């Protein structure tokens, strides 16, 4: 075994870390995350220049990475700066375009000249692709997609919809749909996509497996993002406890607080390990199970770290002004994306089914 990242990945991590540090100081991050297009178009261009979108697809499909560890490398850095760019949306779109050989779109996204988003959830379909009710008929889509990440900043919307009882994938030009954009509570944007006989192109009549795989890529990305955010929030909390004086001493000297910081540090190491596990299994048949395990643990660890960090900061941790509060929000809200702790638990239970073991 060897747990050291390859030189290529280390280089990506280093250059991305430098770029994000320069481009997204927390004041700027908070401004673009809640204003205008809910991201920074210049920042997006910078990511493209660094080749970040290219790192998310394989060489065969028009990129230069695309493995589980490429995804975790990129997103861990995004998490360290709680970067509000719609990279999750474009990761999922890239994987879907790649699954169906749409090299033209991939090229444009990798170059940074176009953006896409993947619309799958509906208000009554959370957690279950089988409940999707948006339909494709005669070249047109009808239905309503909810909380489409990056939908506010996309040129193309990939839509999961039903036609003739099959779950397929369809592409809509964003300007042809009604797009209701808004910021999310933890920053970054999303949109409601209202389709009412909207012209669309069929990418695949049957796309269930590709959709599951794209969602798993998204989940893996979110897990790695959480690890990056947790690492930073832990550093902030430790620094604050050492600096904050009450009762004539740094509050870091109170053992009640020391133990809690230690407890959540243990969970962060657990989180890091389960994400490495999922990254390593990503190209195998165990992908779905490994990703579900990771996202379940990440959900639990993220909540613990977020809540404890805010609590141990006292009032300061409750303020918008303090960067740590935004990390806490992001960690909590990651659990709401692409299936939460309980959803992952259900999946792990179903895939391992202990009642039927020999």
């Amino acid at each position, binding site marked *: 075994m060897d747990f050291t990242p390859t030189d290529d990945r280390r280089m990506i991590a280093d250059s991305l870390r430098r770029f994000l540090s320069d481009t997204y100081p927390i004041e700027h991050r908070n401004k673009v995350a*809640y204003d205008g297009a809910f991201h920074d178009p210049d920042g997006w261009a910078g990511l493209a220049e660094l080749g970040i979108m290219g790192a998310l697809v394989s060489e065969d499909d028009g990129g230069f990475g695309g493995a589980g560890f490429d995804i975790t490398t990129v997103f861990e850095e995004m998490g360290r700066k709680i970067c509000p760019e719609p990279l999750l949306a474009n990761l999922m779109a890239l994987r879907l375009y790649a699954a169906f050989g749409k090299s033209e779109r991939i090229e444009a996204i990798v170059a940074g000249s176009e953006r896409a988003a993947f619309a799958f*959830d509906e*208000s*009554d379909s*959370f*957690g*279950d692709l*089988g*409940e999707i009710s948006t339909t494709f008929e005669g070249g047109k889509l009808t239905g309503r997609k*909810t*909380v489409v990440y990056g939908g506010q900043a996309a040129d193309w919307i990939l839509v999961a919809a039903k036609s003739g009882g099959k779950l397929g994938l369809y592409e809509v030009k964003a300007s042809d749909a009604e797009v*209701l954009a*808004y*910021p*999310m*509570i*933890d920053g970054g944007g*999303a949109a*409601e996509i209202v389709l009412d006989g909207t012209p669309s192109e069929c990418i695949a009549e049957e796309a269930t497996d590709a959709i599951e795989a794209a969602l798993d890529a998204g989940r893996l990305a979110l897990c790695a993002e959480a690890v990056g955010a947790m690492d930073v929030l832990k550093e902030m909390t430790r620094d604050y406890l050492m600096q904050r*004086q*009450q*009762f*004539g001493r740094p509050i870091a000297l*109170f053992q*009640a*607080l020391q133990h809690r910081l230690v407890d959540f540090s243990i969970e962060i190491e657990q989180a890091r390990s389960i994400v490495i596990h999922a990254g390593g299994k990503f190209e195998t048949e165990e992908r779905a199970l490994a990703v579900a395990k990771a996202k379940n643990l990440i959900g639990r660890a993220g*909540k613990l770290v977020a*809540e404890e960090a*805010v*609590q141990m900061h*006292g*009032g300061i*941790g*409750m*303020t*918008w*002004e303090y960067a740590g*509060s935004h990390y*806490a*929000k992001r960690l*909590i*809200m990651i*659990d*709401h*994306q692409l299936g*939460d702790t*309980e959803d992952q*638990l*259900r999946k792990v239970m179903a895939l391992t089914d202990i009642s039927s073991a020999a």
Partner: protein
Amino acid sequence: MDLNFTPEEEAFREEVRTFLKDNLSEDLATKVRNGRELNKQDIESWHALLQTRSWLAATWPEEYGGPGWNAVQRHIFEEECAFANAPRIVPFGLGMLGPVLIKFGTEEQKKTILPRILSGEDWWCQGYSEPGAGSDLASLKTRAVRDGDDYIINGQKTWTTLGQFADKIFCLVRTSTEGKPQQGISFVLVDLKTPGIEMRPIKLIEGGYEVNEVFFTDVRVPVSNRVGEENQGWTIAKYLLGHERTNIAGVGASTEALNQLKALGRKVKRYGKPLAADPLFAARVAEVEIDLEAMRMTNLRMLFGTSDAQGSVSSMLKIKGTVIRQEINDLARRALGPAASPFPSEDVIGNYGIAPPEAAANAANYFNNRKLSIFGGSNEIQRNIIAKETFGA
């Protein structure tokens, strides 16, 4: 043992319930139920309505314009108000300064200040915490220096809740640096219109505005605005902390929040079925319901004065009460799944129909209510209090 309320208590509950039904407007109740920020007008009109029955200052004796209720009546009143989604009574004048003046104030202070609290002419806020003095409140540094018949105040208060609506602030200030820090603190009343005071907003984690920083530069306040003796401020502050707080556990509010959570679980769908039918969700709701039931009993044991752990029981209720409330808030945001993410603007709540309107601010409320375990003596400080009592050191 008899776990029933008396017929008189039940009749009182009915009276409160009827009043709320007849007087609390649907608009206001909806705003409270939906977890929206209330404006000054919302709160003032509700206070005024309650005072038409002399129900506003629940802890005050009748001679000062209160209802003269006992602890059980107060409990019933608070519970019914929570069930009806009435606005929370802003406590600073009514629940804090009022009782302090009644116990420590001069006749003149009682005569001039108490009626103005009841009428709503004066909105008070609480100036205890400072940037350097939170859990260790006694280390506060804001100075009040005697100059003839005045104090001159310099320093900074922070976390001042609803200071933006307030006319006046009651402060703990340092009047002596001799002896133990607790011994050099005085309790002083300050008009916020006095020259030299500046208030700045603090934006909270979820984006709301309810707390402020208050800066004092050479602020001149008559010595007659002091409550109690000079350097007696700590005794007064401690009196307030120990002052019977029937509502510290927030049982009524948590019960209402739990009912809303269940209703939400029946409304939203997961895997094609109502979320409430999902065993993982239902199990967690049942668990918190059990905890809440037990806490309700603990609270009643305290109210009826039969708890075996009198001293630290209010610390216990503070810890358990906030943990239960935060757990309910946690479940309420999780119940929404992806629909919890949108920032709850007017469009998102009212027009886009992403989540049911009464739940659209669930994530924001979850984040905001992390404050419950931090303010009013953090849960760590409450544990220290219980530990001190347990170990005698």
